[in-house]
């Protein structure tokens, strides 16, 4: 009898020690494989599946405000400036390391295209440029397009375009 309880005690202690203090629970984390699963992960969604918050149709261009331009600048600096450069000249860091040079935004053709073209380039890519649809949200695409317009305007601006009270600071 005593022998048996001793064995049970040792066994139970060992079993307890094998617990990993609840670090692994029936909670699925992002990127976590289902327990014991060998399937390739993550399972690809059906071609017809739609993300939960996905809008039904592309948003129409919002009015250009300072907030929109600020947002556009932030997204442009993160996603586009590595190749297109901060000023859109097409001389970003990756281009200096051997990536084919994109056209400057200040060429006449790109000055004259509608903003919709920028939206479409971000959504579908262009030539060797990959699509940014997975990285830039639809509403942000309009913000980036508006910011590209601002870059184009500032590249050809002269001192006379600056409000008189700000001219002093630039001279």
């Amino acid at each position: 009898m005593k022998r048996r309880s001793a064995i049970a005690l040792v066994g139970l202690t060992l079993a307890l020690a094998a617990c990993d203090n609840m670090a692994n629970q029936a909670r699925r984390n992002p990127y976590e494989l289902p327990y014991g699963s060998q399937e390739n992960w993550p399972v690809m969604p059906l071609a017809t599946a739609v993300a939960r918050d996905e809008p039904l149709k592309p948003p129409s261009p919002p009015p250009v405000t300072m907030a929109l331009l600020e947002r556009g600048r932030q997204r442009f600096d993160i996603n586009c400036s590595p190749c297109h450069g901060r000023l859109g000249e097409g001389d970003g860091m990756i281009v200096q390391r051997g990536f084919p040079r994109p056209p400057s935004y200040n060429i006449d053709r790109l000055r004259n295209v509608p903003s919709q073209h920028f939206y479409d380039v971000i959504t579908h890519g262009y030539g060797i440029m990959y699509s940014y649809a997975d990285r830039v949200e639809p509403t942000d695409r309009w913000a980036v397009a508006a910011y590209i317009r601002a870059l184009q305007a500032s590249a050809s601006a002269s001192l006379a375009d600056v409000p008189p009270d700000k001219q002093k600071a630039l001279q």
Partner: protein
Amino acid sequence: MAIFTPRANLFMNAALIGAVLLGACLLLAIRVVPVIGYNTQERFAPEQPIPFSHKHHVSGLGLDCRYCHTKVETSSSAGMPSTAICMTCHSQVWRNAAMLAPDRQSLAENIPLRWNRVYTLPDYVFFDHSIHIAKGVGCTECHGPIGDMDLTWKARTLYMSWCLSCHRDPAPHLRPRDQVTTPDWRRTPSTPSGEALMADYHVHTENLSDCGVCHR
């Protein structure tokens, strides 16, 4: 016949001293074992399918964290870059490098790369990136000098005491919101003080150490 021989004293003393020493060793072990590097995995860099270097991409090329970790501002998980994100550049630069073969294979077969985790919390802890980014806690506060890492290594223990040390007094750890992803940010005389930022971003510490914040 006497039960105890004269040598019994010796045994008794030896046993007592031994017991005390054993106890002391156990106490020491309880204090020390959790903080030695082997256990906390601090400075440990797991092997990766591709030897990806933050040093080259972040400090060298000046890429923003959000170029690759696209969801860090809006979701609890920062997100790992998809194969397509690497391929945006590596379809043209270093396109034949043997190092990047797993990337090309992943693109061709449409199977995601599986990176080995550096930071993981136990399942009973709830963590959210977006709130920390929104309140001006920089990536390097928690992930260390990532701009200098050739292979990503773990810079913090992720112990509860570490989380709490900041939740009790976040002020010295805050920075302006637009600087959260800067890998080499330093406080300069013109940066607003931590207290000013706390007020600006409405950080309230009263309930920040409640168990329910992290254990839901």
